């Protein structure tokens, strides 16, 4: 009558035996993690007020450049994921996850995810000489790059190539001076670095103006090849890292929405009571807390798995799991925040809308949750 819990998996995944003890990956902040978190949170607390983020929607982008300059150079975060051999900090996705949780908590309008994560990871995969020079410039914060793919592009999909037509809805290019352009080359792909000034960038009035998109027209023959050999796997590596770390950003968004909602409901009075004492609201918040705790655990696991072995199937399984869960939870948290703040949650003045817009845009970025679930099913041998 018993089912042993430790039976081998019956699944058609040809996964090599890994030397990584995945069930022992550390999912708590270390002392160094806490220092990094405090540094980023302190910086953003001073330099990224919600009122200035809201001003982005009214066309004032004045905060973006100094904020990114400060994070990139004062805190040295631009080179966090750049290997030491290319003059970077040589940190891993674990540390980047801490940074992104904090960036999400402040809906900071900086190109950390697009340049320091996606572009830097793709470049570091197999850089040419020119790519190595570019990496060092990125690490030093002297240049900022963006991979020219539509924001909804998921790493498990075929990589879209840049032809003569417009590439729509690209994130990070408005803050970048260097575009990484995937172009067809023979039977494969090459990535060319093109100066942003040589491309035509048309800003999009975006759902999320704290990560404003642009439509890009660029000559596919322009620029310099920066990834050696076929760049397919380099682009996938960049998008994989982006997916994993976007989940951490979503955790920050969700945690902030939960915290602000709990805080509001601890103060707001109706019917002579603190409204957070009504069981209908308490139970909603308990469920939301449970979902957000899960998001923070799975996002950290995905980052730790990626850090442990970026080429392992486990990193992909964890990435899709985290993406599917965290993108839904961030939207749920933001939507609950709007509702549970009552009328104030619908106002321009209150920052909740900034989180709702980021959360909904993030849900569509780098693959819809359903795409991630479908791909996860393929990886674990559960298909329709």
């Amino acid at each position, binding site marked *: *009558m*018993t*089912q042993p*819990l*430790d*039976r081998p*998996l*019956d*699944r058609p995944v040809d996964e090599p035996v890994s030397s990584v003890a995945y*069930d022992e*990956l*550390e*999912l*708590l902040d270390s002392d160094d993690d806490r220092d990094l978190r405090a540094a980023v949170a302190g910086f953003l607390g001073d330099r990224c007020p919600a009122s200035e983020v809201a001003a982005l929607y009214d066309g004032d982008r004045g905060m973006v450049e100094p904020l990114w300059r400060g994070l990139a150079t004062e805190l040295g975060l631009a080179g966090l994921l750049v290997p030491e051999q290319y003059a970077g900090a040589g940190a891993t996705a674990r540390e980047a996850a801490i940074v992104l949780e904090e960036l999400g908590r402040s809906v900071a309008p900086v190109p950390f995810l697009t340049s320091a994560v996606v572009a830097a990871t793709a470049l570091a995969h197999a850089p040419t000489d020119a790519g190595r020079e570019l990496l060092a410039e990125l690490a030093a914060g002297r240049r900022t790059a963006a991979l020219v793919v539509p924001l909804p592009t998921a790493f498990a999909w075929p990589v879209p190539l840049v032809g003569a037509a417009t590439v729509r809805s690209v994130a990070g290019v408005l803050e970048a001076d260097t575009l990484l352009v995937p172009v067809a080359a023979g039977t494969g792909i090459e990535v060319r670095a093109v100066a942003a000034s040589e491309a035509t960038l048309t800003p999009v009035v975006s759902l999320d103006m704290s990560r404003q998109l642009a439509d890009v027209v660029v000559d596919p023959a322009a620029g310099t090849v920066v990834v050696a050999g076929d760049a397919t796997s380099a682009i996938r590596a960049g998008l994989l890292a982006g997916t994993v770390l976007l989940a951490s950003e979503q955790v920050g968004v969700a945690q902030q929405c939960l915290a602000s909602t*709990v805080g509001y*409901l*601890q103060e707001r009075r109706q019917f002579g*009571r*603190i409204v*957070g*004492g009504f*069981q209908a*609201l*308490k*139970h909603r*918040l*308990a*469920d939301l*807390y*449970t979902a957000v*705790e*899960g*998001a923070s*655990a*799975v996002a*950290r*696991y995905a980052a730790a798995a990626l850090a442990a072995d970026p080429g392992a199937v486990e990193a992909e399984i964890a990435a899709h*799991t985290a993406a*599917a*869960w965290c993108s839904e939870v961030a939207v749920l948290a933001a939507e609950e925040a709007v509702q549970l703040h009552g009328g104030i949650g619908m106002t321009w003045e209150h920052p909740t809308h900034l989180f709702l817009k980021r959360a909904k845009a993030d849900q569509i970025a780098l693959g819809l949750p*359903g795409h991630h*679930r*479908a791909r*996860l*099913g393929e990886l*674990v*041998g*559960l*298909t*329709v």
Partner: protein
Amino acid sequence: MSPAELRDRVAAFLAEHPPASTERSAFLHARYAAGLAWVHFPEGHGGLGVARGLQPMVEGLFAAAGAPDNNPRANGIGLGMVAPTLLGYASEEQRQRFLEPLWCGEEIWCQLFSEPGAGSDLAGLATRAVPDGDGWVVNGQKVWTSGAHNADFAILVARTDPDVPKHRGITYFLVDMHDPGVEVRPLRQITGEAEFNEVFLTDVRIPDAMRVGEVGDGWRVANGTLNNERVAIGGHAAPREGGMLGLVAASWREHPEQHTAELHDRLMRLYVEAEVARYTGQRLRQQLAVGQPGPAGSAMKLTFARLNQQLSGLDLEIRGEDGLRYESEPGWTMRRPEHVDFTGRDAVYRYLRAKGNSIEGGTSEILRNIVAERVLGLPAEPRVDKDVAWKEVPR
């Protein structure tokens, strides 16, 4: 002690007590004496005072050597709830008397907490313990008592002072289940079987030496037990596709004729949620390694209950016609199971048994209150009985 040192110590123990040629009981007692039973317990109580997180490694080493185990499934309440409570709250004499036979599986424990009139409102319990000479006399009725029919001892909460508000008049005891005043009657469940019981206590004599904590301090001790219970129910380590998810995934692979896009997306949603719960549990265990379980374990148990229910329900749909058949022996016929097994028997049993997961060990509604109040700091429910003597509360 480093993991490597601990590993060496296990190896040395195994060399001295070869599992193949050592009698089971002698082996278990020797393992306890060597501090290799529950390594996070203190020395002298079956442990070495090392991190809780090292226990799985030790279990793995003993299992790999073919060593006999202490049959933990038969004493889940003892190991998961009673032992940590004894460690945290009992006297040194009580620990010396009870912990070793408990760990070795020689004394089985059950939990006399819930009553017909005190379920979610456990603190409203009415079982009375009245001082009598150097001990107490207990009268009352308990219910939902898993394994009472196999138990040698029980943990009991009883009212010792009806004249103070409910939380303050409760005392925590250890009870000999073989006392002639203890009557155990099976309580049949929706699965057809009776894994739990009604327990009637009639003039049961308990020596004062069997009291845990101070008179009137039983609620605090009971909460220590309940926090451990929620962790014990929701916090097990399992591999990917261990537990209920693995059974449903296997059904999916075995029933291609049932595959639709709608069922598939529901399956994958639950797959993701089960994985998220697994990582949450992994992190919770890392937190536990450095402290006692807190109210955050309640969130884990909420998730576990919902997942088990949704997965076991989906399993019946994926099985289609097979989902209509309750074919495991003895079907609906009344029986007494050896132990609880959420993932055992057949799919119909699992679907029905899972309904209990959101009731036992604290209903999901009460757990949401606990999370909201103790984790998020939201105000408590208004309580009309809070400052009223227990005997004055209408019931």
